């Protein structure tokens, strides 16, 4: 069975806030977690409600995002959508983790900058 995943995007990284997202990436993975389709969506304006509607109308099974408010989180969970939130990192890294089936809530996928002595 295919997995349909919605990823909130800001430029080339995960959007810091779900409710302020204006770009999403819809990814479809095969039963073996192979990437079979990806499609970008630009929203007219940022709205958490509309993002929830989009996820429901497109029959998404998983949402990957940064910060998400309690209200949206529980609504999506109630609608049986898995929410992997508090994810930080470049989109390609996130997709790579998804394909490997090892992305989880709170994952930080940035290469850290080192403090210069």
């Amino acid at each position, binding site marked *: 069975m295919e997995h349909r995943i919605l990823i909130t995007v*800001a430029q080339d990284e995960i*959007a*810091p*806030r779900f409710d*302020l997202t204006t770009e999403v990436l819809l990814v479809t993975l095969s039963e073996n977690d192979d990437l079979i389709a990806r499609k970008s969506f630009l929203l007219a304006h940022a709205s958490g*409600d509309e993002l929830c509607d989009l996820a429901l109308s497109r029959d998404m099974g998983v949402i990957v995002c*940064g*910060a*998400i*408010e*309690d209200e949206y*989180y529980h609504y999506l969970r109630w609608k049986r959508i898995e929410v992997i*939130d*508090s994810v*930080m990192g470049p989109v390609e890294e996130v997709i790579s983790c998804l394909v490997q089936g090892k992305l989880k809530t*709170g994952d*930080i996928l*940035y290469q*850290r*900058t*080192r*403090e*210069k*002595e």
Partner: protein
Amino acid sequence: MLKRIATLGSFPCPDLPRLVDGLPIGIALLDGHGHILMLNKTLEALTGFSREEVKGLPCRHVLRSRACVQNCPHARKENQVVETDCINRHRRKIPIRITPVTVHNQEGQPICILDVVEDLTTLKEMEARLSQSAGQGQIIGRSPAMEKILRLVPVIAQHDSPLLITGEIGTGKDLLAESVHKASPRSREPFVRFSCGPMPSEMLDTELFGRMVGQGSEIQPGRFQQAQGGTLYLSEISELPQLQQTALVRYVDEGTILPVGASKPIAVNARLMASTAESPEKLVQEGRLREDLFHRISAIRLHLPKLQERGEDLEFLLHHFLTHFAHRFKKEITTISAEALHIIREHSFPGNIRELKNIIEFAAMVCTDEEIRAEHIPGHLSRTLTQTPKHLASKQRKTLGKKS
């Protein structure tokens, strides 16, 4: 970076992490690219992230504020205070104030940025409470009759005397009672509403006055105990049986109630408000309301006029509800056609404001464009006006003439 800060002054620099940890406000230390160098303990508690796990990350992913996404405070030339909100790791939205401070070295070169983050939750809650008690809650009106009542609300609210509200169904009695409570010094305490509908006498006693449970040592609270310190509002008081009306007389006189199963009365402090849709004098004549109770609860009496007597309020409320439901249904409805307005104006509104609200809710629900038209109005209203009135027909012809 910390070593560079240590060389800033001629005196030995104090242990910076310990210094900022002691502060009761959130502090984030950022490098020139907006990456986190450290968070103090207050900010760790606010964001839910520890300094170790977020070190080196872009601050927008740690603070996760609206300003970070829409109007980054660091992108501006001057350090400006920003009031915004953030969502922490526990998915809680918190109102915050961010004050960015650029730290310079002795040569005036910027070396890092301090983000001072204040949690405004308490402040915002206080503002909300004040605005609620300063206004009249949700009750609105522009007609002289309503303006007179709205002017009285803050005055009445300052007293503890019982209040009787009269008015037909759907005129807003419950809302007015709640507005008086919100404007009163009791506003922080509970507002308990009880509908005196028909129910067995003992159950009614338990519901109102509570009952003794266990070995008679504990009280299962009734509405009076729940309203302790606040307001108890009894809607349709005439539905209350004579026995409970007598108990209310005793409460107004002595300030005590007798819970079911208790041997002695207990003192309760709740302001009593009551309402009825019928004339209280008529109820007394018919023996449905005890005269002694009527005189006690009508120490202050307010009468809400029916919608037809509120003149300009019809259109004012109509547009108020239209805006409300357009927003709720996420529609771009801005106007109402002359024909639809005529149908509404000609209606007698036996259900008063509640009925008007329902009509507009229905119209907004079925309307698909910017204007509410006659076909959006519920059928039972438009059926009474099957033919377009002459003056409207001529008006429409004139409008069409102008367009052509």
